[in-house]
């Protein structure tokens, strides 16, 4: 797993999503480890803007040539933007999972409590080593 990229500037869930706080919003995507195990991502669908989510609830799905996987939101809040680029070019998630491959932004409802349940980069690295 030494070639798996983990960024220091964000937090991680056990479902292999990352979150990054940007001002009063939170950006969510899937990790390099996740995109690599899914391989060829062919389709991404995220719940509509305006959807209110609880932390760790299902809010979309990612399809690869192999299988379908659910996306969970690691933090609770309201979806304010969905990455429209992924509709026509889902492969961006494979190419740039931490950058252009972001999936959605939300306005968190209980950020501090939700953050406490997530891993930092070091802990996530350890977690994927253990898999």
């Amino acid at each position: 797993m030494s070639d798996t990229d983990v960024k220091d500037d964000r937090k991680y869930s056990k479902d292999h999503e990352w979150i990054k706080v940007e001002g009063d919003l939170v950006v969510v995507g899937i990790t390099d480890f996740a995109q690599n195990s899914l391989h060829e991502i062919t389709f991404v669908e995220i719940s509509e803007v305006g959807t209110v989510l609880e932390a760790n609830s299902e809010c979309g799905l990612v399809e690869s040539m192999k299988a379908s996987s659910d996306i969970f939101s690691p933090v609770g809040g309201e979806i304010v933007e969905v990455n429209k680029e992924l509709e026509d070019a889902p492969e961006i998630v494979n190419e740039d999972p931490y950058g252009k491959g972001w999936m959605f932004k939300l306005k968190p409802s209980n950020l501090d409590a939700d953050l406490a349940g997530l891993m930092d980069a070091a802990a996530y690295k350890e977690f994927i080593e253990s898999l």
Partner: protein
Amino acid sequence: MNDDLKRTHLYDWHVKHGDVIPFAGWEMPVRYSDIREEHMTVRNTVGIFDTSHMFRFIIKGPQAQVFLQTLTTNNVSKLKVNEGHYTTCLNELGGTRDDLTLYRVGEDEYIWITNASNGPKIHSHLMKHSTTFDVEVIDKSREITMIAVQGPMAIQLIQKIADRNIRDYSRFSCYRVKLLGYDCYLCRTGYTGEDGVEILVLDTPFNDEGKKKAISFWDQLLKQGEEFGVKPCGLGARDSTRLEAGLVLYGHELDEETSPIEAKIPYAVKFKVEPHYIGYDVVKQHKDEDGIRKTRIGLVMIDRGIPREQYPVSFNGVEIGVVSSGGLSPILDKGIALAYVKPGSVNIGDTVEIDIKGRMRKAEVTKWPFYDPNIYGASRNQ
């Protein structure tokens, strides 16, 4: 290493070059590069697949034909030496024990090629019934390597490495030939919708020497195929090509509760046969549209989304069935599926809804293959 999982002769090569996963009790390569790339290689040039996880039984003896007719649904008496066909093996209730290809390779000698997942079950079934016939059943699975060579350039590649003219061998023929100097059975069959062959490389026992021989054959095939654009292909492309061609996969479109008539593979089932095979009466009824519980249809997504196995299918708000296999068609760049629905509930051209994890998405009922057969597949315009 998981001791419960079996490996083919080519395992060492797969581990070195591909992504190996557990499949039906085997450790098999799901891909070497990208599934879509391998898929398109099969559609546009030629791909090679290790299919040695399938089971290969030799059935021989004076009563081989009558024995096989007792157990399989196609007309065994029609097979001449060097001919084969696609057929099914049923249970007493007309459900499918397995689908298989059967080749007649001698006056009283046949090869039965069956699914990996069903190998042990079929072996016991054959052994049990063989006791009342003058026939011998030999499991050759571990002594024969099996490789599929599929795509529009497959025949050119095989001609290049064969010791005789093989171009005119017809679909489903099976001849003993030398390829690259190796003693092989060459069968003009496949599971991708494309023209191509399945090769049985004989005398490759499952030991160091046999494995070396098998890997050497595979390597040389890749080398000789370079000029045709050959690529090794994994189980991912094997599944996506068969789905796009509308071919059934045991465990998805076929099982012990599904008859071949319900699965819409009537060409595997004949009725003017003697003796009547196990399950004959039930499939005869199904043929006469009596007692059919479900029927197989093809679906192409109209809305965005990828249909997957077990997703419910509805028509006019009423649930009519369920998806049996689904995925992305690289040719159409759309989600496609095979599904089982109530007989007569929909027609080609109808719009149904697939419940994709709570989101109702539209799909059109279509024929298979899902690609345009004038452009892709074995009967494409040359």
